[in-house]
């Protein structure tokens, strides 16, 4: 009887493994074929010339493109930090002290999802015009608009993390042990929602690096705007930069997954335990 059960379990496991493999290959083809095609295009030689990496090598020779890449990276960093500084304490405080406002805060944070980017531009243009005339017309001011754009995605990611822990009890326990609110936030809440924070940060970085509409219509040259402009002059370089930015986003995602994995491995190494505790008694 036990042998039959083992056999059934093994058959199920093989089927599951096969299903996983099929899904993995299909998803890989879905993502990699377009990127491969882009790479192929970016390495074509002119006319009958052989393949060349000239388009890739020339990326650094376009000063406007380099400036746009740096500006987009700076914007991603500023937007992500501003989003975390704004959202994490607000969401924790609302959960602790103002739970009745939670739905309102959620509504406000999700609102940008329902507003088309072009409508946002119409609303933001006079503001940016005034800001450019009176304060600064630096591209980094786009971070304000991007902060609004990333709110819905970051809010969702952080909300999932906060829902997974008992924020109230953990904060009160830390307070009763002598922790200030800043310590509660930094030493107790943040370490326990670090996965959610990383997810929110990744979404924010990915969104800012891929943003085109706001920057283009507010007359700023970020990475995507520069890629589009370059595409008109030199399609090969434009596609090479697009592939590079996609690969960069993938690299960030993989780095985040490794951070999560290394935390788990460290935890298991410290305790010498890998599964649910056996024999734990009171």
């Amino acid at each position: 009887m036990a042998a039959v059960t083992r056999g059934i379990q093994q058959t199920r496991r093989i089927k599951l493994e096969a299903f996983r493999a099929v899904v993995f290959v299909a998803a890989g083809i879905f993502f990699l074929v377009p990127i491969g095609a882009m790479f192929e295009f970016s390495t074509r030689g002119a006319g009958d010339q052989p393949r060349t990496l000239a388009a890739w090598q020339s990326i650094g020779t376009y000063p406007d493109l380099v400036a746009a890449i740096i500006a987009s990276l700076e914007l991603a960093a500023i937007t992500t930090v501003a989003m975390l500084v704004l959202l994490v304490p607000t969401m924790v405080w609302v959960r602790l002290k103002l739970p009745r406002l939670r739905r309102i805060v959620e509504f406000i944070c999700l609102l940008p999802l329902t507003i088309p980017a072009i409508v946002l531009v119409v609303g933001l243009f006079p503001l940016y015009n005034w800001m450019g005339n009176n304060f600064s017309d630096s591209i980094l001011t786009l971070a304000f608009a991007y902060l609004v754009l990333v709110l819905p995605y970051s809010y969702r990611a952080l909300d999932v993390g906060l829902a997974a822990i008992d924020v109230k009890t953990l904060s009160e326990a830390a307070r009763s042990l002598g922790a200030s609110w800043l310590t509660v936030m930094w030493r107790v809440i943040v370490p326990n929602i670090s996965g959610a924070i990383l997810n929110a940060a990744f979404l924010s970085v990915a969104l800012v690096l891929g943003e085109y509409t706001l920057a283009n219509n507010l007359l700023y040259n970020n990475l995507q705007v520069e890629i589009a402009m370059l595409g008109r002059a030199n399609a090969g370089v434009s596609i090479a930069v697009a592939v590079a930015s996609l690969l960069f986003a993938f690299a960030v995602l993989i780095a985040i997954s490794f951070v999560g994995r290394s935390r788990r491995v460290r935890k298991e190494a410290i305790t010498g335990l890998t599964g649910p505790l056996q024999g734990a008694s009171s």
Partner: protein
Amino acid sequence: MTERSGVEVRLENLQRRYGAVVALDGLSLTIAPGELVALLGPSGCGKTTALRLLAGLEDADGGRVVVGGNDVTGLPANRRNVGMVFQAYSLFPHMVAWENVAFGLQMRKVGAAERKKRALETLELVGLDRYANRYASQMSGGQQQRVALARALAIRPQVLLLDEPLSALDAKVRGRLRDEIRRIQLEVGITTLFVTHDQEEALAIADRVGVMQSGKLEQLDSPVAVYSRPATPFVADFVGLTNRIPGEVKFGGVEVRGTQLPLVQKDVPAGAAIALVRPEAVTITGDGDASSGPLVGTVIAVAFLGATSRVTVDLGDITVLAQLPTSDAAEHPAGTKVKLALRPDPVLVDRHE
């Protein structure tokens, strides 16, 4: 038992409202140094609110909190020297047991080596030094609450607050941990406020039990006194089981179905009243077949409770519970006629049916 070294805690006329709901209505309570007082009451009676005001986790609308002679009413939670164990599991999930215990010491700027030493000592006190490197997710509920107790004690607080710390545990673990909490409390000699809705827990662990209702203390006395001499009908009803038997107050006592019982209350006006009689004050004196009378009835159920059994007897107009040794109860299975007797213990009377 070591010499008690706690401080006196005074709650003076504490008031707290949540909108229109009055959570605390002028609560006053003094806990002697090293004493363990249990606040007992139904949900919403204000017991947890009282504890949270003492911890500084909420602000009082009126009244004072005095700990060791110092008025701490306006102090935030992190500046009051109190240790607290919560009803929900509250260990920091990203820290192992000893790090949890050392957290409060770190907040007090204790050096790293001393911190770890004291954390391990406190874990030893609760019998969990072997589990020092385990995360909360790798411990059982009882173990987590013991680590939480160690964490609360490690900071050497003036007061220990226990907010239903056993309610999430199964019955066997609950009983064992309850005894352990009492042992440690006596060993450390710390003034302790224990909040619970479980009367058995309160009566078993406390020096004194405070029974609360609607934001007020109904009675604050030793467990024996609260059980055997309840001050109000609410206390009698809430603590233990009570038979409500119609009777008549006369001659300084109450006559209940032909039996004269002394009264707990003084100066009760004569007239009809409901006598509150404990099941253990009801005995079965014999076979009811041969006799008739106001205390003759039929057994309708026998509930086995271990050493004792609870027998439900139908007297026609009311049913009465009698708690007897199981061997005695076994002689009166359901369906048999029995004659009851009421032991002349002092009883309370209630005018409200």
